[in-house]
């Protein structure tokens, strides 16, 4: 702890006079701890997680506006707010935005931030690749959305069935942006997937075997494995579509002998695992929230884990249920019908385990808990309507109607997004060091729940009445008027509720200074991220935690007395780990991931407009990779780790160190530190 006692000028970098290391002579090694430079060069999984979350919320606003445009158009019959062509673009971009630019990155935000914390690691396995993954996602999302200003967005629906999306039927550049933009975000997901799979397998703290990992980490791990295997399949499909559209290949040209089912198979082999990629992180989040606010351990932990793994496996064997109406033949239809019914079993196991966790628990209905219960209820409705799709004859009736729209909004909005909202309220104090306002949060929840059910509940009825999805309008007298109006009113209630969420963020931030800080463990929670200060210090853990059992942190606070009653032996504050952060070692920030990622949209624009731009993009990517390779992952101008005075003397971290000083000092004397030094 010498670091704190010394005057800070004694900690000046040894090479400060020589100027920092230049990789390729282009960039000074980034050293900023605050300001925009710190953010664009960061490799810290927490900052990257926050940026993922912020970008997802930004795209959420865009996707939400698109949703409102759709509902405004359909509020009454024969409206002409949007032309049929524009309507195609709006619903397509709404779907792409919400799936690829909102739900996936929001999951990535939680996974980036909390996987390392829950497994007791200092960062992810490849911190710079993590930054590359984020920036590539962001530029991919921006690239997709610039299509609005360059002749119109994609208009072929989110699953973009070729040959319908060939140049002949979709002559604008919208589908080119779709194919190339999703290729770019796919690269981001693949890199992120590889990174987090390796992180979970390799960076677990001592004693944390796989079956001691929190359920959130487990579900995230399954998600990342699914991504690793699903992304290349859609990459193939997107390559084929790109080659067809831009280079006159013949993959989807029926006149040349193409099979229109090829795209459908490739897309849905990706598309169905994708559904679980969207929902599993949210399942993980509520599996953390429900035990904490029921004051009980998760019911049937191994069942929770293995049902998640089972979903991961079975998710690959059900894709053709999206294609029952395409004439696959009775044997395929029967097989996929049965497998689809089967996959409801592990999902049902999860639902029952959550309920059994709550059963007999001392439930406190905090905002995160409300969202979690909301997920259980809404996802069950969505899951049940999903089982009705598994019945092929019924599905043939439902295909391409609003019944389908209702179903997938119940699972993706009522499932994934409810889970993420719960996660925001649950982990906000850990990430930012202040609570989101509970009262406003509850209003947010109830309004969303009401608006959500008003919007999507009636769509079941509309669908069964025969209203097909993706039609820009309907005639008066079809009997669709009333429920469409209800649905549109619901959509605007959701929008208002989400506005309250943003208001809550701003207001809570402003009020935060007058309230006591949340402390390390405000919810009396169970997993390792609550054993460190809030907000999380830059180095995460002072010492590598040593784990002996599932919910290890909780057992540091509670033990059984001789009568078998659970008694508290320590408060969260006491159980939170004090330690010696001076031994921690962090990877150095870098600009190169940003440089590489900026190359991708240039390649994309170049392929569409002018190959010269592609050359610029390729130069950026290749130059970036060279600069990256030549720049060591560690800043060699900083003292080597394990060195006595290593550590970060500046800014927020020093403050955090000072706060933790007394305990830290004791621990540093009392314990032999064996880790990461």
């Amino acid at each position, binding site marked *: 702890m010498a670091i704190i006692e010394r005057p800070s000028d004694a900690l000046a970098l040894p090479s400060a006079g020589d100027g920092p290391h230049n990789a390729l002579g282009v960039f000074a090694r980034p050293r900023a701890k605050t300001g925009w430079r710190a953010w664009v060069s960061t490799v810290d999984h927490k900052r990257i997680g926050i940026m993922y979350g912020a970008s997802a919320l930004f795209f959420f606003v865009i996707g939400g506006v698109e949703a409102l445009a759709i509902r405004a158009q359909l509020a009454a019959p024969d409206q002409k707010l949007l032309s049929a062509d524009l309507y195609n673009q709006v619903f397509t971009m709404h779907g792409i935005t919400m799936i690829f630019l909102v739900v996936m990155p929001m999951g990535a935000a939680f996974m980036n931030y909390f996987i390392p914390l829950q497994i007791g690691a200092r960062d992810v396995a490849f911190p710079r690749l993590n930054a590359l993954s984020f920036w590539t996602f962001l530029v991919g999302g921006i690239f997709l959305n610039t299509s609005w200003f360059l002749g119109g967005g994609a208009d072929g629906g989110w699953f973009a069935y070729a040959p319908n999306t060939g140049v002949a039927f979709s002559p604008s550049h919208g589908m080119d942006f779709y194919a190339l933009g999703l290729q770019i975000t796919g690269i981001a997901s693949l890199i992120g997937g590889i990174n987090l799979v390796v992180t979970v397998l390799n960076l677990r703290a001592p004693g944390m075997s796989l079956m001691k990992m929190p359920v959130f980490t487990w579900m995230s791990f399954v998600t990342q494995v699914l991504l690793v295997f699903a992304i290349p399949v859609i990459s193939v499909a997107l390559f084929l579509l790109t080659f067809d559209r831009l280079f006159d290949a013949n993959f989807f040209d029926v006149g040349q002998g193409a099979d229109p089912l*090829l795209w459908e198979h490739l897309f849905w082999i990706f598309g169905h695992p994708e559904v679980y990629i969207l929902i599993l992180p949210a399942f993980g989040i509520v599996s953390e929230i429900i035990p904490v606010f029921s004051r009980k351990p998760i019911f049937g932990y191994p069942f929770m884990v293995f049902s998640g793994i089972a979903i991961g496996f079975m998710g690959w064997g059900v894709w053709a249920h999206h294609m029952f109406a395409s004439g696959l033949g009775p044997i395929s239809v029967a097989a996929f019908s049965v497998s689809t019914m089967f996959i409801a079993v592990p999902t049902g196991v999860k639902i029952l385990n959550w309920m059994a966790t709550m059963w007999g628990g001392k439930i406190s209905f905090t905002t995160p808990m409300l969202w979690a219960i909301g997920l259980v209820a809404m996802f069950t409705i969505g899951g049940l309507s999903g089982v009705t799709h598994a019945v092929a004859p019924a599905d043939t009736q439902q295909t391409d109607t609003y019944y389908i729209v209702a179903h997938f909004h119940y699972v993706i909005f009522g499932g994934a997004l409810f889970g993420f909202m719960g996660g925001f309220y649950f982990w906000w104090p850990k990430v930012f060091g202040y609570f989101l306002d509970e009262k406003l949060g509850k209003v947010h929840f109830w309004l969303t729940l009401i608006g959500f059910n008003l919007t999507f509940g009636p769509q079941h009825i509309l669908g069964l009445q025969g209203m097909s999805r993706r039609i820009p309008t309907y005639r008066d007298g079809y009997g669709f008027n009333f429920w469409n109006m209800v649905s549109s009113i619901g959509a605007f209630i959701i929008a208002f509720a989400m506005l309250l969420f943003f208001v809550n963020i701003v207001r809570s931030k402003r009020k935060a200074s007058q309230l006591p800080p949340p402390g390390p463990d405000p919810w009396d929670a169970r997993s390792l991220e609550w054993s460190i200060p809030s907000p999380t210090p830059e180095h995460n853990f002072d010492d590598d935690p040593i784990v002996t059992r599932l919910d290890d942190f909780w057992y540091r606070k509670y033990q059984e007395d001789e009568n078998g009653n659970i008694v508290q032996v320590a408060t969260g504050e006491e159980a939170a780990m004090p330690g010696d952060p001076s031994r921690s070692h962090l990877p150095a920030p870098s600009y190169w991931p940003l440089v590489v990622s900026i190359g991708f949209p240039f390649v994309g624009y170049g392929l569409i407009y002018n190959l010269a731009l592609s050359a610029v993009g390729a130069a950026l990517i290749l130059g970036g990779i060279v600069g990256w390779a030549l720049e060591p992952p560690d800043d060699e101008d900083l003292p080597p780790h394990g060195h006595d005075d290593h550590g970060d003397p500046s800014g927020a971290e020093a403050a955090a160190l000072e706060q933790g000083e007394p305990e830290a000092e004791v621990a540093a004397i009392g314990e032999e530190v064996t880790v990461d030094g």
Partner: protein
Amino acid sequence: MADTATHGHATATGISNAKLGMWVYLASDCLLFGGLISTYLLLRHRSVSGLTPAEIFDIPFTSVSSFVLLMSSLTMALAVASITRGDVRANRVWLATTALLGATFIGGQVYEFTTFYREGLGFTTNIFGSAFYTLTGFHGAHVIVGIVMLMSLLMMSVRGNLGPERRDAVEIVGLYWHFVDIVWILIFTIVYLIP
């Protein structure tokens, strides 16, 4: 490549981050080639005009270039073995040989593509052409990336930065290289040999 937060400390699995990352990437790449090979199998006999596989393939020529690529797997294994022994000079020789054999294979592919094109099979000629060039083109691109990685290792070695302590780096490139070879065995069998 050793872009890790653990800094060579023991990992939970005992496999280094970079090597495990390569394994996971290769698992993912299986699905990329799986998709491309399935596409080819579906489309190869569906052309309505133009040249067919049977009319165009020169199996003896491609067998020779396949043999060259397979031999490069042997030299890659020798490169890993030599760095394990600490024999930096032999390592350099085997890395260079592997890259050279890979480049020979690529040369063969360029020759093959130009010949096919001259005989009348372009990328847009028919559906078989699109599928064939896409599948083999993706494989060729993988080989080229492999050659770049081998050349980078060679450069590191010449500069004295590739001793036995960085055996992992050679082994990881080796994993990639063997994978690309195995994929070629599949492609050669499925595209060229099975009628």
